[in-house]
């Protein structure tokens, strides 16, 4: 997947899991939780879907280091299986 495809995958997962959030209004480099209300349960469901749809497992210790969506996309880009 290229960067645009990764973003589209995340957009689609947001739509499925938290349809009340307008994904395209989220600024990728700003902390996600400053912009939208997302609880740990929804976030967990998103991580499960990210794993299922990209094949990339993201450990909790890495998630704890992410400060915004760009960090998540960078991680997926670096760890996806070719």
């Amino acid at each position, binding site marked *: 997947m290229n960067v645009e495809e990764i973003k589209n995958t995340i957009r689609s997962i947001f739509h499925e899991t938290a349809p009340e959030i307008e994904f395209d209004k989220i600024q990728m480099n700003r902390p996600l939780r400053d912009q939208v209300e997302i609880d740990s349960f929804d976030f*967990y469901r998103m991580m499960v879907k990210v*794993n299922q749809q990209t094949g990339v*497992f993201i*450990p909790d210790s890495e998630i704890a280091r992410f400060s915004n969506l760009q960090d998540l996309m960078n991680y997926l880009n670096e760890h996806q299986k070719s």
Partner: protein
Amino acid sequence: MKYHVPMPSLGADMDQGKLMEWKIKAGDEVKKGQAIAVVETTKSTVDIESFREGKVLELVGKIGEQISVGAPIAIFEVEGSDLAPSAPEATKEIRLKVSPAARKLAQERHIDLTTIKGSGPEGQIELKDLETIKTPEKSGVNIREAIARAMSKSKKEIPHYYLKSQVPLDALMNWLDGKNQQLPPEKRLMLPVVIYKAVIDSVKESPLMNGYYEGGVFKPSSSIHVGLAIALKSGGVLVPAIIDADKMSLTELNAAFLDLVERTQKGELRNRELTEGTFTITSMGDLGSDEVFGIIFPPQVSIIGLGRMHRAPVIDGSSIRIGIVMNITLSADHRVSDGLNGARFLSHIENKLKNPDQWEGKL
């Protein structure tokens, strides 16, 4: 003999419930634990389960009716004579006389009929009695009132004491990363659930934290039903419990938690889950504050608060490193336990979180 099925209390703050749906009809044989009706409280819609086995003689409650706690909603024919309360006179009197037109309007406008003084014969509530009543703007108003009542009661009656520990979570996260990597994505264990497991296992060793304080006496509970404060997307907080959480493996607890959160948001809880919690955990998740000192949910006697996970300096022997930590707090009832008991409880939790290998082979 006849058994009058009462409107159950689904929390210390509940005075009445609105009958939304019958799941039984006259003539049905009902088993203990069977869902018999759906009741709406100020907080949620709940399946009411039967506490007795028997045959349905009459459905007394009408759909849409607000019924006071303790007032009969149905009459069963049951075996034996023990534990068979008949409807108390006081609750019979609470049954409201309402004209059909007034009842329809009240239902449409969500007006609580028990707050209305009727001007008709024998105090019957008529349409004209409702015309000047302002409609509640949204259900969030009621849930705020319910929280206000329960928390005011707690702060008035329970002498809280508060303790805090900062717990490093690096070892736990490394252990969890290793486990989750081996599991299929949909079976992934949630970090908060692993922390709940450590708390539940510690409650087993701290019986003064688990049970109810009622009538001036502490009644410890032999079961552990952990209440979890869950923020509703529609506003407010509910505290449903995972029943028999102490008997669950980590995997089972994870599945039970996911199921409970989903049903809480959909308003599909069972009455036991709202009434039988024996202690509570409240969690900040990733939002908000580094620590939270909870208010005890009466008649329980303790609440554990989980703050936001964050980075902080951790002292390891003679060196300092940056670690991932969580502030875990305890608010407990001083009528039941002392600070030393509370400190031991927190220490049990901390030890379990620092040594996750204890769960090896017990997932």
